[in-house]
């Protein structure tokens, strides 16, 4: 399953708040 990753942290937090959804942040150092 493909994940539609968001790249803007503040936009993600704002959307989560407005849609009442939790946020998952993946901090990675893996090669692209």
């Amino acid at each position, binding site marked *: 399953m493909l994940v539609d990753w*968001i790249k803007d*942290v503040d936009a993600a*937090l704002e959307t*989560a708040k407005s*849609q009442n959804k*939790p*946020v*998952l942040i993946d*901090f*990675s150092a893996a090669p692209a």
Partner: protein
Amino acid sequence: MPLEAHIKEHAAWFKRFDAVWTPTILVMDPAGTERYRIEGYLPLNWFRARLEMGLARVAFMRKKWSDAEKLYTSMAGSDAGSVAAEAIYWRAVCQYKSTNDHTVLTPAAQELSERYPRSEWKLKSDPWAH
């Protein structure tokens, strides 16, 4: 709401959220408060179980006892042993929170003693055993 932060592209986010190791996963509630943190690699079944625990914690901290209990119940049967023990403990706490009946704690202590006698969660439940 999945958000990806790469150390080369988003170093400021690492600092902002105190991510000092990779991989680190944060589970945050809709208000942006961190509720669960996973640090270090895990195989898929363990990772999924920890993510579920994070979602359960979000529900728990929002006092959605029934929602949290359902998630903990599904994790109580997990093949990720320490996750299952933790889930049994918190499932009992949800039951107590929703009923205010302390007798719901005793069966959880018994289950932990039988299934996970060496776990930290069994030790934490010892006061419930009697």
